[in-house]
């Protein structure tokens, strides 16, 4: 084999259409769809508002400035709340903590749930039964009730709320990823590395996880939506940031008695929560639609190759 000498060192691979991060390509496609663009636009603008809100709030969100439930005026564009605080400033200041907590809870839920679901499906047997029965038990409680239970026993600490909401997501994430993994772990490429004697943790990390990107992306978006709703709901019920801190969820609760006097004190936070969840949900939906097309089963990929449809699109 003299030809072997001519092989260029692989440290400099030939310039081929390399896609190191396929999920980036997927995101790009998603953003090009109307659904994806609208969803991402909504979610990003609400996030941006919540992020820079505390800095641009015209007044202190906690100062008592005027009469309770004052109508909108040039001084207070959204009127005042039940204690006479500026609604605009409270809306601007009250989103950031909610968002950070929702993201943290989602991340926790996805990580724990994915680890549990993938291990259950790949290791089978005793591990599978143990994990899935635990999941069944947790699933028996409605998500909000589960979070309420933990918070009311231990107390309304912010980290505890994140933990409770995150853990309440984990079982559902585990379910979804278990079924996705069951299918993938039967594929020949997984058998091929098993024949090399690769250890299960590595098989799960290297061979299975990268092929779960699309269900993971969809699940993340969905869980983020739920986190926001549950966080806001908990705040509404009085678990969350404690008064006098501003929070979209608690604002709805505090001001609903004055709905006829100054509806904006309720409508503004409710609208922002609605726009945010509609945004994340629409975006997730777009991701799901795109990945169904992108992440075809190998047999379908073969068929598409045959017709050359991929190329032409």
């Amino acid at each position: 084999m003299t030809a072997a000498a001519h092989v260029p060192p692989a440290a400099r691979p030939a310039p081929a259409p390399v896609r190191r991060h396929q999920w980036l390509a997927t995101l790009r496609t998603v953003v090009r769809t109307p659904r994806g663009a609208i969803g991402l636009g909504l979610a990003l603008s609400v996030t941006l508002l919540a992020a820079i809100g505390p800095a641009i709030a015209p007044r202190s969100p906690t100062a008592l400035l005027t009469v309770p439930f004052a109508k909108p005026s040039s001084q207070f564009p959204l009127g005042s709340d039940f204690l006479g605080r500026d609604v605009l400033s409270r809306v601007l200041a009250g989103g950031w903590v909610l968002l950070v907590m929702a993201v943290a809870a989602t991340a926790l839920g996805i990580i724990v749930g994915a680890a549990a679901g993938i291990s259950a499906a790949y290791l089978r047997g005793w591990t599978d039964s143990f994990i899935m029965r635990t999941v069944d038990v947790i699933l028996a409680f409605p998500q909000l009730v589960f979070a309420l239970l933990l918070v009311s026993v231990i107390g309304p600490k912010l980290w505890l709320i994140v933990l409770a909401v995150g853990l309440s997501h984990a079982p559902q994430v585990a379910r979804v990823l278990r079924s996705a993994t069951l299918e993938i772990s039967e594929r020949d490429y997984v058998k091929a590395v098993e024949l090399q004697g690769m250890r299960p943790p590595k098989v799960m990390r290297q061979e299975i996880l990268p092929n779960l990107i699309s269900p993971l992306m969809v699940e993340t978006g969905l869980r983020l939506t739920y986190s926001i709703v549950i966080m806001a709901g908990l705040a509404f019920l009085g678990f969350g940031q404690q008064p006098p801190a501003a929070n979209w969820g608690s604002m709805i609760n505090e001001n609903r008695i004055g709905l006829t006097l100054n509806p904006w004190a309720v409508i503004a936070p409710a609208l922002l929560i609605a726009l945010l969840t509609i945004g994340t949900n629409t975006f997730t939906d777009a991701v799901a639609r795109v990945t169904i097309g992108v992440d075809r089963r190998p047999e379908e990929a073969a068929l598409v190759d045959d017709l050359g449809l991929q190329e032409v699109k």
Partner: protein
Amino acid sequence: MTSDPPPLAETAGDSSARCDTVRLDVQNLVVRLGDSGPDVVSEISFAVPAGEVLGLVGESGSGKTTVALALLGHARRGLSIAGGQVRLDGLDLLRLSPGDLREVRGARVAYVPQDPSAALNPTRRVGAQLTEALRVHPGTVDDIAGRVQEVLGEVSLDASPAMLRRYPHQLSGGQQQRVALAMAFCCRPSLIVLDEPTTGLDVSTQRHVLDTVRSLCSSYGVAAVYVSHDLAVVGGLVAQVAVMYAGRIAEIGATNKVFPYPLHPYTRGLLGAVPSVDRAEVLTGIEGQPPRPGRRGRGCSFAPRCGYVLEACRSQAPEPVLIDGRAVRCVRAADIQAAATARREAVVTSPAAGTPAAGLSLRDLAAGYGGPSVLSGIQFDVPAESCVAVVGESGSGKTTLARCIVGLHASWTGDMTFQGVSLPGGVPRRSREQLKGIQYVFQNPYTSLNPRKTVGQIVAQPLERFTGLAFRERVERAARVLQDVSLGPDFLSRYPDQLSGGERQRVAIARALVVEPELLVCDEVTSALDVSVQAVIVELLRRLQREHHLGMIFITHNLALVRSIAQSVIVLRDGTMVESGPVGQILESPKDPYTIQLLQDVPRLATDGDRGGDEPCR
């Protein structure tokens, strides 16, 4: 099975009389991607007389199924029929309103799909499904029950009430396909389109189904279009054959002319790639892959892969030329006709070089999946540096055997030794040396490569565990092995979905070879590939086996493939060995009746012009 098929041949009319009536006339059919996208198939023209079968052959992606569906006025999602005519007894099916088309489908044009188990409704009884077509088209037949009885007899199925009360899953694959045929024939259509109806069936069943199709068509004057990728099947069945390539008909003419003396370079290549069960020959595949719709360029689509290519071929698409009674879309058809037909080079099979002790040996192996045993009494040796072929139909246990040997299936009994050392069952109990020494190539290259890894990562992966090489050395070794399987180093950074089926299978072979094993277990490695690619892969394996001094177990359902690659053969049936011995002996003078039957039923390519079906009608 009580009723004999009626004497069909006698009921057939005078053959010269029916040849005058052209039943199906297709002119300039064009199917596009979307409404204004590139052509998927174009310039499709052919005519089929009553009672005749036209074979539409081509490899995957050639557009043959697209054409078949267009004959029913149907286009798959994303495609549209953009032009041309499909005239059935003078009636243009493409001009019909959706309502009229519905009337015609089933009654005058019938379709037999590829997979009968998917085409029959699993929740309804066979009888109900058969009468359905007759009920949907009232007026075609007066006595529905009588017609069902009759048509079941015609497809050689038992027409008893018990049969009619069965569900599809209670039938065998062959019976299911007969039911699908009966459904197609029950309204006495004028045209029947068969889309690879025998692909999933084993050779014996396949032969029976083919005989049924042929006799039904000729006795009722039905025009049939038979779509297939299997040239040997088509060669024995049809009078006229159309070879499709990249959405066009490359060559069309009488089977007994086209197959013995192909004039289009593609047809020649395709025929050269078909393995023969009678002779051990070097198979010549066609390198490269067909261009996809929208990338076909101005010139001849086959030019990049063609051995006869001229400069003119690359700039202008050839028009079909009439030569020797057929239409050939090649400017060099006359040159090719003048050239002598090249016979394929014979393979010299060398006797096994290594000693049995250095290879794999199985004694009294039995295996199962908890229930009844799938394999029993398996006993054979694979001497080092020799190739043993394991042949069997689906369900014979050949894949289970492979999985036992490589360690994926752990519950077996008996003795397995490799290089004199006992092999335990299951991957975790085997030593690293044993795992490295026996490598497995999976059947389907579309599922055996991780779509998220580059070819370089896939091929270098086994080195990580089996050798102490550093990263750079691993990648260099991977590049070298890729070169061995005729893939350049630029493949290192590609992903599997950027590769064709043949390239994927080469990568899978490279992954097995990279650790320098002693034994390669190839499980139906060509069954998911086209015949031209199959030939390339088989030749590659044959060369690699020689160069790398490999022992090899070549598992296949295709007896013809065995001839050119293996030294000895084992025939499996229902999990037991019915016969084993040197390749020549088994294929030339088989002793076991099952092997004899199997060999008889293998479709043979009619290269001598004597098996081309009826004389074509013009």
